[in-house]
């Protein structure tokens, strides 16, 4: 047993040290890039929160804030109604769920979370869908680059890239959003790739034999046929993004993770439960709405 430490000093690979050096290098020379990214993401999150009425929070009267909140709740319920093809149950459920969040005094946190999740998800989709398309068109790129990268992103414990995210972007919602993007992107890449590859060969041949350009084939045949599968990926990406809120709140991203963290650290079961239930309510609403979109597209 004694020889083991000696052996390991002989063969110790300084992987961690190299990674630290890489991070140092990146912070030194690419800070402009991170600043730009931070600026954009922060702007998006702020815009979201503004639209959701959070600017009324610090005003003297709570009345305006309450009115703003309920306007938003009604609007979201209406969106659910439209997206689900006018299902009345989902609409009422959405309204009651959001009212529940408001009534446990977590509306502000919920809006922060929705903003963070949606911004992260939108960015993940904007990067993920084109990556999925690229993977479907190039077997080698897909097998030797994209797939291992996705495995890495999905299985590397989130805490590990939380640290570089903080180093690059500082504490706050931006670092949280970046970590969320990395964690939530793989499903939409995988399912976009899968959906396009599952389009029957004969249908592709039919498209080609009628004289489609590659772009026409992609936009008029492959993507529309793959759409239900892609939307399943979108749904998964959004839910994964939501599952990151508690972790993201550790680095000051705010939102519904805060009451949960407070609950854990101060053994305050009640506060933790309220936060947890609110996350579940948001998850269910987002899941049902995106799923309804997927179903209506496959009809």
């Amino acid at each position, binding site marked *: 047993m004694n020889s083991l430490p000696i052996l390991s000093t002989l063969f110790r690979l300084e992987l961690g040290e190299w990674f630290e050096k890489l991070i140092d290098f990146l912070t030194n020379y690419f800070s402009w890039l991170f600043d730009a990214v931070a600026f954009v993401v922060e702007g998006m999150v702020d815009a979201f929160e503004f639209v959701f009425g959070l600017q009324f929070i610090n005003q003297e009267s709570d009345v305006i804030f309450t009115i703003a909140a309920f306007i938003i709740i009604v609007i979201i319920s209406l969106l659910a109604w439209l997206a689900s093809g006018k299902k009345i149950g989902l609409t009422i459920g959405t309204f009651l769920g959001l009212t529940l969040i408001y009534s446990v005094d977590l509306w502000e946190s919920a809006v922060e979370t929705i903003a963070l999740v949606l911004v992260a998800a939108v960015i993940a989709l904007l990067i993920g869908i084109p990556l999925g398309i690229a993977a479907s068109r190039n077997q080698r790129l897909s097998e030797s680059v994209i797939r291992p990268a996705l495995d890495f992103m999905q299985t590397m414990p989130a805490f590990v890239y939380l640290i570089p995210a903080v180093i690059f972007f500082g504490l706050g919602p931006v670092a949280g959003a970046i970590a969320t993007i990395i964690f939530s992107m793989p499903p939409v890449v995988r399912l976009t790739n899968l959906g396009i590859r599952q389009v029957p060969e*004969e*249908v592709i041949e*039919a498209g080609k*034999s*009628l*004289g489609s*350009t590659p772009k026409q084939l992609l936009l*008029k*045949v492959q993507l*529309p046929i793959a759409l239900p599968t892609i939307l399943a990926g979108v749904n998964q990406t959004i839910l994964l993004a939501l599952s990151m809120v508690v972790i993201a709140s550790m680095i000051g991203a705010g939102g519904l993770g805060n009451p949960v963290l407070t609950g854990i650290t101060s053994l305050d079961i009640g506060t933790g439960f309220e936060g947890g239930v609110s996350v579940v309510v948001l998850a269910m609403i987002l899941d049902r709405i995106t799923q309804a979109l997927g179903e209506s597209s496959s009809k």
Partner: protein
Amino acid sequence: MSHLEIKNLYKIFGHNADDALRMSEDGVSKAEILKETGATIGVNNVSFNIEKGETFVVMGLSGSGKSTLIRCLNRLIMPTYGEVIVDGDDVISADDEKLRMLRRKKMAMVFQNFGLFPHRTIRRNVDYGLEVQGVEEEKRIKKAYEVLETVGLKGYEEQRPNELSGGMQQRVGLARALVNDPDILLMDEAFSALDPLIRNDMQDQLIELQEKMKKTIVFITHDLDEALKLGDRIAVMYDGTIVQIGTPEDILTNPANDYVKNFVENVDRSRVIKAESIMRKPRAVIDTKDGPKMALRQMEKAQISSIFVTDKHHKLKGVVDAEEAYALVEKGEKSLKSIVKTEGLYEVSPDTLITDMLPMASKSKYPIAVVDENRKLKGIIVRVSVIAGIHGKHMEGDANDE
């Protein structure tokens, strides 16, 4: 110059195409080549020409390379060597733009499992070929409705493919291919996925359409009956090569080798063999101006008991019985006119199928007369020939009389 020319076409799957080609030219077997080079020869030195308006059927079992071959024609699969020439233009060397133009204007394809776009309505499936060319919507809709009507799908324009039966889906496939008015229609096992009855209907409809459209059709099938029914000419494919090209009758009556022979053995010949290939020259014919004595002598000489009568332009006038001719001789009549009969005598054209002659053969006491459109006597068919024709055996000796 033929409409569509295929010259020494090869498709070799694998990396060592050149080696495989050389070995193949030296007569090495496919299995040996695969072992040596790892290359599979899908299409092996295929050449043929197709004329405008012709229905050319490529027949072979699965794995014979026929689907690969047809995909080489519009380059869904790039051939390894050889030439494909459409109206003098080389398809193989065409760049992307030229290839697209060829696919948009000259060649369209119909697929075994239809290959319809599930997310589009029937109308939008059909007008896809126009949409990719940037034709405006109004024109597209008009044309799509027109083509859908010709294939018998009026009223289904706004349905989805999955709401239609298999036969109807393939009509959509056909309409989609026809929307650009292509000269050449490539049909890859187009009816193989359909029920036998529906398949029959579709074949009939294709024949009917083809009479109007006069397209050049390359039709792939593994079904010999289908090949015989549709094809003006048939190419039999085996193991990547074409073993025989010929008309349906050529293939049936003169199979090039045992493979083709095995193939055609079980076919219902009565639906393929035509009158002209089982008819024979009448042993004796007399002219209208000949008298009964002459008729009797001719019958005696040919050992027959009835004889066909023609005029000097070889037009069929009727038939004369030996007994009646004898009666005339007894009476001292000089003219045959009174006993020349047409009732009970069946006349058919040279391309009548045996199956249609069977009822005549069982009713008639005379041989069946084969006449052309001017009623000129081309030959006769005795009953035994009809039966023999079904079984593919040529009767030796004299079977002129019954």
